[in-house]
């Protein structure tokens, strides 16, 4: 999105090309970063970390990853859960094989392994597109989950078939296992989230991002002006799977601690992340955060309102949540295909002119 604002001048090329060319956005970005890094770790407690902030950060990474593939490159994938499982199991194998290596490296390596798997399953995208591709990614989803369920090597021959994160530390601070501190896990995830967002933002506004968008908007035309569809699609799959792998690794190692693959990384997870980017905004990094925040918050809010205040049974609230999410997907696709990100943009424009819009 190319956007400028009246009264906001840039006098050098560096200023003109910075990530947030609008002053307001830039300040907002610094304020959010400051609060997230400096303020939150001191006031965070276990409840906030486990039920809201850590899942939000992890899902945001997954949503950024999927948004690169779906929102920027236009290749719909329903295999997110399977790729997250690859990240989780890669991380588990690395953690148990090399206990002395830092968790940072394990998580990044897990991302790299997932990227390789993603490229493998992205190969059919060269021949097929649209929902044909969506079904092809379903193959990845079901095959990968089956693989991790059935091949004992992946879960180190444990009797339960589950994988459990052993205790690992980074710079002497415990970040996995049952005895972690809320602020440590939070900061660990935050570092990855910020890094992913910065990398994704810069990739998508650079040459590779423009190639992805060209493929998304019209692949044949893109090919004619010299975009190599093979490279563009496969890099999108690789980058997207890299982020999704990282989020899967964090989801397993930091957030859940113990994972049963069919339950944690089933087809519902794929849909959840897809819904995040539809509601948040296709083709927008901010939208990935907004969608992740929305769908992490929604069940918590519904539970507080429905179960705690109104005293309804939990199953009704769960069903109501399905209705609301499904309904919202339809409403957003009809009324605002660019999601919360676009609503936010419109709101900003309206507020700037308020109360004299003409």
């Amino acid at each position, binding site marked *: 999105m190319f956007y400028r604002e009246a009264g906001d001048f840039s006098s050098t090329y560096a200023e003109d090309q910075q990530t947030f060319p609008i002053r307001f956005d830039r300040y907002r970005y610094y304020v959010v970063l400051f609060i997230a890094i400096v303020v939150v770790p001191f006031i965070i407690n276990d409840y906030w970390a486990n039920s809201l902030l850590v899942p939000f950060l992890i899902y945001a990474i997954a949503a950024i990853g999927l948004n690169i593939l779906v929102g920027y490159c236009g290749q719909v994938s329903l295999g997110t859960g399977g790729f997250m499982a690859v990240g989780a199991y890669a991380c588990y194998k690395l953690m148990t094989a090399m206990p002395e290596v830092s968790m940072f490296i394990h998580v990044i390596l897990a991302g790299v392994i997932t990227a390789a798997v993603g490229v493998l399953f992205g190969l059919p995208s060269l021949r097929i597109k649209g929902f*044909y591709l*969506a*079904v092809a990614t379903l*193959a990845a989803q079901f095959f990968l989950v089956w693989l991790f*369920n059935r091949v004992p090597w992946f879960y180190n021959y444990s009797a339960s078939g589950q994988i459990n994160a052993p205790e690992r530390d980074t710079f002497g601070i415990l970040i996995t296992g049952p005895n972690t501190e809320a602020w440590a896990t939070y900061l660990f995830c935050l570092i990855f989230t910020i890094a992913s967002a910065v990398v994704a933002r810069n990739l998508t506004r650079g040459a590779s991002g423009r190639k992805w968008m060209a493929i998304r908007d019209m692949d044949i035309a893109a090919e004619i002006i010299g975009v190599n569809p093979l490279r563009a699609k496969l890099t999108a799959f690789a980058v997207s799977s890299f982020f999704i792998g990282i989020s899967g690794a964090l989801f397993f190692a930091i957030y859940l601690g113990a994972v049963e693959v069919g339950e944690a990384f089933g087809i519902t997870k794929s849909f959840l992340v897809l819904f995040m980017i539809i509601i948040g905004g296709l083709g927008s990094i901010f939208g990935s955060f907004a969608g992740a925040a929305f769908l992490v918050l929604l069940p918590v809010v519904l539970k507080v309102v429905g179960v705690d205040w109104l005293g309804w049974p939990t199953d009704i609230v769960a*069903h109501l949540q399905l209705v609301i999410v499904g309904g919202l997907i339809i409403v957003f696709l009809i009324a605002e295909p660019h999601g919360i990100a676009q609503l936010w943009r419109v709101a900003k424009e309206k507020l700037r002119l308020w109360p004299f819009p003409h």
Partner: protein
Amino acid sequence: MPEQLAFTIEVFLNGLMAGVLYALVALGFVLIYKASGIFNYAQGVMALFAAMTLVGIQNGQVPFSHLINAIFGTDIHKFGWHVHSFLAIALTVLVMIVLAIAVQRFVFRHLVGQEPIILFMATIGLAFFLEGVADLMWGSELKTLNVCAAEGACLPQGLNLWIDETTFNAFGYGFFIDNLDIVASVVAAILVIGLVMFAQYTKQGRAMRAVADDHQAALSVGVSLNFIWILVWSLAGFVALVAGIMWGAKSGVQFSLSLIALKALPVLMLGGFTSIPGAIVGGLIIGVGEKLFEFLIGAPFLGGATENWFAYMLALLFLVFRPQGLFGEKIIERV
């Protein structure tokens, strides 16, 4: 007859039967896809919704009773009557028609002309919405479904003794085939013939084919697109009801019923999105293929449960070599 061969043939036959049920779901997809270009992911949930509605009406459940009880503190569950199966089916068809009108009016009328992938995502949303509504309306517990014409004349359960005995006398090995599967095959055959007759020989059927062929040309000769779309969604709802009855009678009405929609996707990949015979043949190939693969390779060598992914992998391989499927129209792209 050698034991192994007999087993294999039995697995083959059971695969055929399972394939018929996949084909039933795939049929609903093809109907909607042909007429409106919408790839209806919600077809499986429609089957679930139809089956739950049928059971709910049969047992005289009060719709939304849980929700009403939770809001108003009342304690109502049932009307206290039992509805005859045929009447219940008629009422369910009515519900599915209302659903078709609502879906057309509130969702897809606003999405005309959007990209297919947007429509696809909208149907995913619709699937979640419907599932939530179905659970709120009738409760999410496992229900047993049976359709009875009269006392004692229900859908048959269990294995067919006659086939078991005859084949045992003939080959020295009795084949196990479910009665219900046989009924399902017959019903599917009747349904397909009925649909083809409807499409070929009635006025509405001709209009339907015209719309499938070319929206604008159909509009220009006075076919109402709106009406045809509602008709097609109602037909798909009816097919969903039949599929829901068959699957529901086989394995109970529960959430996993909606997952057969996912199984129907590879069926379509194989058969082609636009072909009714393709849906049938694709269903049979997938049904037989996954059962045989599980029996011959999956269970002995790969640790079993290969049925979960075999269909998708087969479809994936197929797509790479023949993207339009067996019977689909060739995909031509123009700039």
